[in-house]
């Protein structure tokens, strides 16, 4: 680990102002950042600790939603009664991620901003455009079983590893930020994460010195909520494919549906076209196949991850069948 200076932030604005310059990083839970620092994938010269800020509350909003402070730990968010009763997809997604020890430490904002688990990003001896822009992408012709089939580019095929963010994407969460001058910005979660294009090193729309302070969930949409995660082990593994689904249906007729996917893309992946296919349709195999076609329209495998295309189709089929039964 490279040496760094350590300071504790007094306010969110103070923290934001302290990380404007290059080499400065916020540390919250630290479970991803310290892991990367040990491998010298991340080499900050200054760490600004925000753990003492009072951004750890979950509050009801006037509009019937929930406002989640950026420092709310993943385990506390998953266990909150309001989340369990009204945003089950979020509770389930959180509980599907990492281990209990990590969830006790990992924060809401940190979960959104965690880095990919692409093997080549982690291995500093290998080319990686995300870690070392312009060096190439070793995953393209390498072991790419865990990599993206949607939204990737020839410069980077890494996936975003979060489960929580996938559920938040289905729930249309809004991310609130502040900068060093106290300027507040609301970013729809769909605009927080960027696709890699030619600049995979730029992963979010956050500006230098802009930090996340909270995530707001609008009131829950009507329907049943499910988070289905398919992975190599039954627990404590990243998703190969995951689906956050909210489906409102009755007597075999789908009124509305929201679908967000994890494990497939460089960001939590929503499929508006598939949702259009489902809205107003009868719940049957033809409909589900058409929805899967819409999700996978631009899907491309890179060899090791070709299996994710049929796996996504089958997972979606299974989830929709379960959710529209009876």
């Amino acid at each position, binding site marked *: 680990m490279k040496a760094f200076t350590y300071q504790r932030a007094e306010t969110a604005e103070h923290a934001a102002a302290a990380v404007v310059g290059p080499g400065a990083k916020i540390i919250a839970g630290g479970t991803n950042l310290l892991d990367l620092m040990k491998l010298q994938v991340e080499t900050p010269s200054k760490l600004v600790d925000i753990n003492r800020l009072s951004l750890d509350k979950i509050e009801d909003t006037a509009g019937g939603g929930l406002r989640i402070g950026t420092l709310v730990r993943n385990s506390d968010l998953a266990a909150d009664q309001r989340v369990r009763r009204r945003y089950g997809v979020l509770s389930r997604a959180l*509980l599907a991620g990492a281990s209990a*020890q990590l969830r*006790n430490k990992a924060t809401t904002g940190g979960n959104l901003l965690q880095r990919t688990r692409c093997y080549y990003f982690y291995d500093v001896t290998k080319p990686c455009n995300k870690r070392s822009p312009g060096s190439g992408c070793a995953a393209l012709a390498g072991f790419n079983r865990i990599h993206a089939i949607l939204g990737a580019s020839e410069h980077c095929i890494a996936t975003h590893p979060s489960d929580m963010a996938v559920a938040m994407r289905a729930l249309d969460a809004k991310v609130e930020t502040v900068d060093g001058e106290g300027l507040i910005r609301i970013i729809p979660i769909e605009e927080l994460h960027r696709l890699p294009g030619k600049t995979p090193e730029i992963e979010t729309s956050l500006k230098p010195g802009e930090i996340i302070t909270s995530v707001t969930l609008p009131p829950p949409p009507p329907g049943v909520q499910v988070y289905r995660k398919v992975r190599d082990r039954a*627990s*404590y593994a990243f998703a190969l494919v995951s689906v956050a689904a909210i489906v409102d249906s009755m007597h075999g007729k789908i009124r509305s549906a929201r679908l967000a996917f994890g494990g497939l893309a460089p960001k939590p992946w929503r499929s508006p076209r598939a949702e259009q296919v489902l809205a107003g349709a009868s719940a049957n195999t033809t409909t589900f196949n058409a929805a899967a076609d819409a999700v996978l329209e631009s899907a491309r495998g890179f060899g090791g991850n070709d299996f994710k295309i049929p796996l996504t189709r089958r997972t979606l089929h299974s989830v929709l069948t379960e959710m529209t039964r009876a």
Partner: protein
Amino acid sequence: MAEQDPHIAPDEQPTFEVTRRTVIETGTTALLLTALPRAAFAASTVDDDATLPAAASVELRINGHLHSLTLDSRTTLLDALREHLALTGSKKGCDHGQCGACTVLIEGRRINSCLTLAVMHDGQSVTTVEGLALGDDLHPVQAAFVEHDGFQCGYCTSGQICSAIGMLAESQLGMPSYVTEDLAQVAVELTDAEIRERMSGNICRCAAYPNIVAAIKQAGGIPT
């Protein structure tokens, strides 16, 4: 007879012969070692960086005792415990949060001590495996691990035990897990599947899992 350090497990007590002189010297050395950045002794945490390590002061209440340390800011909580305070009960397995051998309790909550900096916990309470027994009386989870043979080589055991204690407390608070069928349900029923899911952050390469589950059930007062 060497005076036993209550913070060090009996099998890890130093075995050198103690005279009045070495007691005094040891006391002085302990102070010095505590005051100096010793992270360099911890394998793979530090490289030969030209930048001077930044010193940071931290006060930790560990197993009920207050410790004031001046550390290289890079020092993880695990290295602070093992390298600076000789509390070697918490083990370094993977050093990347994947195995759970380093699990300790902070303010009663289980975390991976390898993935957090000691300075981030200034003023907080840490419980390690060394702090669980009351004298010769083992903590119920420790006693249950002994009774059910919840280990083979023992390397993961202190992490398993601390994790199990944290897990039982989480269950008592009604925190759900991935396998909890009804999220609205307030009381947790610790079935084998629940215990296995909740303990999935602790790997045992000897695969003592059935006995670990049995030990946790006994300690948690769950009918088998």
